[in-house]
């Protein structure tokens, strides 16, 4: 499939990039797939296949920028998988042009936040692992990948109201786990439904 397109020089550079980046990328993928390792391995492979397509751009970037690019690409490929109705793993699509064109901006560094207690995080992780696939997809897009509800609806091809319902349920379950030690517990946040 790639015969003749990738020169020996590029192939060597790509393999070196793989050696430098794949390990962390796999860890990131495991977070997105809720520790489905086989799927995470597939996602890593797909992300690096995309990297080969865009190597002319990527080879000029720093390691840190490549890392950001690979993560963003891998997340997009995963999202593309969420879009399909049937079993996620069998649907890993060939990468579409839409998902390849990613700006190589360095990741925005959020100001350091107070770390949540590891016990609370552990409880949340267990909740996340137990979510239905569709709920997981919606929640991941909202809070991990920072998408708006309307974007989520269009990416997944579902009704915006459905997105809201999923988010409402997952939000409630997660907040319950954080309950005692987080400041917003019991608050009626601004913007709440009247």
């Amino acid at each position, binding site marked *: 499939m790639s015969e003749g397109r990738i020169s020996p020089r590029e*192939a*060597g550079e790509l393999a070196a990039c793989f*050696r430098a980046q794949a390990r962390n990328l*796999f860890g990131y993928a495991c977070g997105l797939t809720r520790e489905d390792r086989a799927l995470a391995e597939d996602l890593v492979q797909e992300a690096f296949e995309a990297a080969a397509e865009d190597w002319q751009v990527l080879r000029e970037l720093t390691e840190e920028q490549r890392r950001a690019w690979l993560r963003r690409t891998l997340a997009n490929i995963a999202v593309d998988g969420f879009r399909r109705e049937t079993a996620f793993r069998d649907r890993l699509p060939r990468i579409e042009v839409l998902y390849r064109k990613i700006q190589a901006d360095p990741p925005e560094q959020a100001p350091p*936040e107070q770390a949540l207690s590891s016990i*609370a995080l552990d409880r949340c992780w267990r909740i996340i692992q137990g979510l239905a696939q569709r709920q997981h997809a919606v929640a991941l897009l909202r809070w991990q990948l920072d998408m708006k509800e309307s974007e989520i609806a269009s990416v997944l091809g579902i009704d915006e109201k459905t997105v809201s319902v999923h988010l409402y349920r997952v939000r409630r379950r997660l907040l319950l786990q*954080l309950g005692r030690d987080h400041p917003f517990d019991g608050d009626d946040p601004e913007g709440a439904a009247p």
Partner: protein
Amino acid sequence: MRAAGRDTGTSPEDALLSRVYQQVTELQESRLSAEYDLDKGLKRYRAWLDGDSEHPGVEWNADRAVTELYAEHYRALVRLAAMLVRDTQTAEEVVQDAFVAMHDGWQRLRDNEKALAYLRQAVVNRSRSVLRHRAVVDKNLQKAPPDMPSAEHGALVLLERDAVVAALRGLPERQREAIVLRYYADLSEAEIAATMDISRGAVKSHTSRGMAALRAALEQE
């Protein structure tokens, strides 16, 4: 029904849950990264790069293997050579020669670990002959000031101070090599022994004598 705002803004709850997701993922990431089978993944990726996903594990030929090593280790090897021969241009030539030689002998190496050891050895040997050649040929030539790429690591900054570089120059060849390999190239005792083709005991004595001499030279200042 919903507790918080629509797309128009992020509620405190959403901000909190974003943090939860980020931090949960980071935890998983650090835990699971370590468990990744890099060799397996790399084998599969190379097979794809070779355009043959039906037959993974096809031969990773010399060109690709050498380019991969080049992309990964070239700079570090130039730094190593530059510490030995004291100018970047010669260092680059030394390293490039070593790569060419390795490419020619790839059929025998066929393995990245072995190849890296071979490269280091070749770089040290070639640096040595450059120095001997220089000592004979241009004794009278004014030396240009050392032209070193700066090291990224904090500990190295200390070792790359001009005074240290100057003091290093004053050491006997073997002691200088042992110290450069240990503290600049960050090799283990066994790797240094293999690279210099001497025993581990000899590595120990060269390194400790070299360090003692360095310390003495620096204290004199």
